[in-house]
């Protein structure tokens, strides 16, 4: 009787311990491995221009303005959801080439850009101002591509003393991840 009871107790204890030891004789952990592959950024001109046409100098200083929707439009393509940084700067324009060909006095003008974004919308609606150095997200176009439409207008101050001629300059818009 005693032996039978002892056997059961020892069996019971050993069962508890062996189960416990078995449960802790190994361990395992999962660790996620992650990487995001980005397609290179591209930017193409959709249309428009920054041609302010002709302006006749008067006795009053004037600011000639082109609204972004009437200016030039660019399409940026990249990784959907990813932010890009947009940078640009004021442009100094000059009439040097015109003076070289026609004579006259050299002069300078400053083009102050006004850049707006319509996100992934390729029509001019819901536009928001984009400052230089500002960050804008690329919208998912549904095919795994991120899109961003940028619209550039701006203004040029013309003084009463501005020299005549054809003024040119180059506006550079840069986007980067």
């Amino acid at each position, binding site marked *: 009787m*005693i032996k039978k*009871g*002892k056997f059961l*107790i020892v069996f019971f*204890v050993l069962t*508890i*311990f062996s189960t*416990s*030891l078995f*449960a*802790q*004789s*190994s*361990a*395992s*952990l*999962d*660790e*996620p*491995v*992650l*990487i*995001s*592959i*980005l*397609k*290179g950024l591209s930017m193409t001109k959709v249309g428009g221009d920054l041609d302010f046409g002709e302006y006749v100098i008067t006795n009053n200083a004037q600011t000639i303005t082109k609204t972004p929707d009437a200016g030039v439009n660019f399409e940026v393509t990249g*990784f*959907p*959801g990813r932010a890009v940084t947009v940078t640009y700067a004021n442009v100094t324009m000059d009439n040097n080439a015109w003076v070289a060909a026609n004579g006259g006095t050299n002069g300078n003008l400053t083009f102050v850009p006004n850049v707006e974004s319509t996100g992934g919308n390729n029509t001019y609606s819901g536009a928001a101002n984009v400052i230089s150095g500002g960050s804008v997200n690329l919208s*998912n*176009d*549904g*095919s*795994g*591509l991120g899109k961003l439409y940028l619209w550039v207008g701006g203004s040029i101050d013309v003084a009463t003393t501005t020299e005549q001629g054809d003024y040119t300059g180059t506006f550079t818009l840069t986007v980067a*991840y």
Partner: protein
Amino acid sequence: MYFKTFLVAFFVVFFFNILKAQNNNEISEDIHLSIVKGLSLKKLGGNIDFGEALSTNRKHWKIISPKNGARFVVTGIANRKITINYTRIVTLNNYAWVSSVGGERGKMKFISHVRRTGKNSTYTNSKRVRNGRRYKLQNSNGIGKLYLWVGGRIKINANQPAGKYVGTFTLSVAY
């Protein structure tokens, strides 16, 4: 641990009382019990996140050194050997991302690189850990310890489809 000690004590007293009650029928039995420290594997920090990479027209590699990857510690019986198994090559895919965003499905291979620093929790004198090999848990104040460091490299094929790629690296230890 306390429960186990209590249980053993309980049964010793229980047996003693039974034997005492019989009075005329004594029996003795050697009792032996080895308390074994359970094996544990714990993540200490870091990760295996390669961040972002550009897909170009040429294949290239991105590398995370074990020092800058994920850190683990194995705890168990001092000086006891354990077997370490891990996923040597992990296949990542962008399927979940493509399902939600669109685009082309793709796969990538991550080749893991595991190193050990014994009981040293800093990355000094690291040695390679080979998959399936046995390594000793070093004695640290009576506790067996082994620090593991996981990095690796990933191959980005030419024109690799864009997306967020995910895979799972599994690390296992056993006595």
